[in-house]
């Protein structure tokens, strides 16, 4: 039986339009054999949660550079729980002060990837996590 492809939603929440990172990650994950859906810009937590349900994804990758992570991430995690998406892996990439990381993890973010992370590290993390 062919192995099911890992499905990933790459999302760009908030008002920020700096999408270089989101696009590079989307393409790198696709090149690594995953099924990648990119939401485009300015997605509210509601839009992201609905897209995640609709697309039945294994992983959500949020790209946040604007400093709005403390507002956006807990909102999204709450919505995912409401929709029964308890086993989706949510990752954040972007500019996140180290001091904010423990709170984000407590809110249910599986991992935070800071600037300078290689795309291979993210691919490896997803493979390991989804295999579990």
């Amino acid at each position, binding site marked *: 039986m062919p192995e099911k492809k890992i499905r990933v939603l*790459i999302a760009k929440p*908030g*008002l*920020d*339009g*700096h*999408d*270089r990172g*989101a*696009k*590079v990650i*989307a*393409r*790198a994950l*696709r090149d690594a054999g995953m099924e*990648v*859906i*990119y*939401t*485009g*810009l*300015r997605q*509210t937590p509601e839009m992201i949660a609905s897209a995640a349900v609709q697309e039945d994804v294994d992983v959500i990758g949020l790209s946040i550079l*604007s*400093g*709005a992570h*403390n*507002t*956006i991430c807990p909102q999204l995690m709450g919505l995912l729980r409401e929709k029964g998406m308890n086993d989706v892996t949510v990752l954040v990439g972007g*500019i996140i*002060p*180290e001091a904010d990381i423990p709170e984000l993890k407590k809110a249910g973010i599986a991992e935070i990837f*800071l*600037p*300078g992370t*290689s*795309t*291979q590290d993210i691919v490896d993390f997803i493979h390991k996590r989804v295999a579990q």
Partner: protein
Amino acid sequence: MSERDKGTIQTITPSESQVRRRQLSPKERAWEENTLRPALENSPERQVEFTTISGYPIRRLYTPADLPDWEPDRDLGLPGEPPYTRGIHATMYRGRLWTMRQFAGFGAAEDTNQRFRYLLAQGQTGLSTAFDLPTLMGYDSDHPLSEGEVGKCGVAISSLADMEVLFDKIPLGNVTTSMTINSPAAVIWAMYLAVAEKQGADWKKISGTLQNDILKEYIAQKEYIYPPEPSMRLVIDTFEFGVKNTPKFNTISISGYHIREAGSTAIQELAFTLRDGLEYVEWGMRRGMDVDEFVPQLSFFFNAHNDFFEEIAKYRAARRIWHKAMVERYKSKNPRTWALRFHSQTAGCSLTAQQPYNNVVRTAIQALAAVMGGTQSLHTNSLDEAWALPTEFAATIALRTQQIIAHETGVTNTADPLGGSYFVEALTNEVERGAWDYIEKIDAMGGMVAAIERSYPQREIAEASYRYQMAVDKKEKIIVGVNDFVSEEKPLEVLQIDETVAHRQAERLRNLRAERPKEEVARRLSALRKAAEGKENLMPFIYDAVKAYATLGEVCDAMRDVFGTYEEVAIT
């Protein structure tokens, strides 16, 4: 979401034709035979290919063979004269140094006002305002979509009342101010002009720069509100208004900075920016303005990235291309139209979160390239900006970096210090040719708006950015402290944005809406809406609305009602 593009991407590398044409002198041929060959046999070079950070190939050595058709009188000229390769002023920095203009903005207006006054006290010579994301997107601080974003990436400005606080005790008649605002540029500018008027400053004399470059928003930074057509109309409205009312104000700063930050190569940055410039010129002429009347108020803004010589070549080529285009395409007769003036900013995307003190060194080298390339004004990034907006400590070092270049290094003693270098002249020629190839390609698509609608520049940039990331991942390109020379370090102390900003702003807006003359605001907003439906210049209507304390969000909404909003086709 669209399918990934396959096979249509073609990145222009114009060096090959140049390389093929190299005609070696007998002396150089003998050197290759007698000196180079044994040296290579003895110890091969470190890499098969040497490339710039943009992936552009660089040859082993540059000699007269690399400048076959080069004519110094025609291609280089003298400073202050066409084709401006050597700079736009006869004496360059011997006469006047560039403007040291540090971009700043965070929190509420009073927080940024304090930072402005601090920077001026430290010897900064111009102001530059960073606005927060809600402001950039034309939302008031209390709009639901503003939640979590108020005052984070810049200062929150929702009305003229905020603008009055922002420039409190800063005389706009004496200080030049740059404002990084695009889609709502006309609205923010109207607020600025209203503050200037209140302070008693003469509009004919005030000076500064409005970024106002919507095309690069569609291409790279993505802070757009309206579709291209009405957005371009607003830009041309500000040009017209500026010609009549504020002759010393740069009504636009045509920006390659964000294109580069989005991952473009140096040649793409140059080409897309200048083609944007030509697009604005053409739309202005179509409005009926004379090229020599409004183009002198157009300015440019480039990135200063790591690759020292590639950057210098880029600035020199930019001036040459602009001169040629103005004279040949638009038959300009005014030297003020020909001379490309530019601001530069060191590359934010080159800063590393790891070992952040190294960023001081990167920034210094990048700033040096901008100065050796003849910049008119400069922002140097702070060492902590891969983490957050800069602390006062970090911002001070960044400003001091410019002061050291200006007063200690000696590079300001002569105009275009690298002029005549075989390498720099050859690279300038090649970068120029690469840019013209792109410009002509976009011409053939029907111009930049048409190219944007086909996602052409967006795709070229995404491709270049992915290629670069892969090169970094494979360690073909080294970033010190990131993929090599890694070490443990202590976390940096970064600026924390006060979380009460959003509440303070919301309360201020509540009070404003209660106190202002309600009917007057409604009347002026509906006048704006009506004008937007027609063809009139909207600046006077926007000005009237903000003077009555209509908020940024209300003014932008009035135009949203008429123009609609823009959604891009997301490509990955």
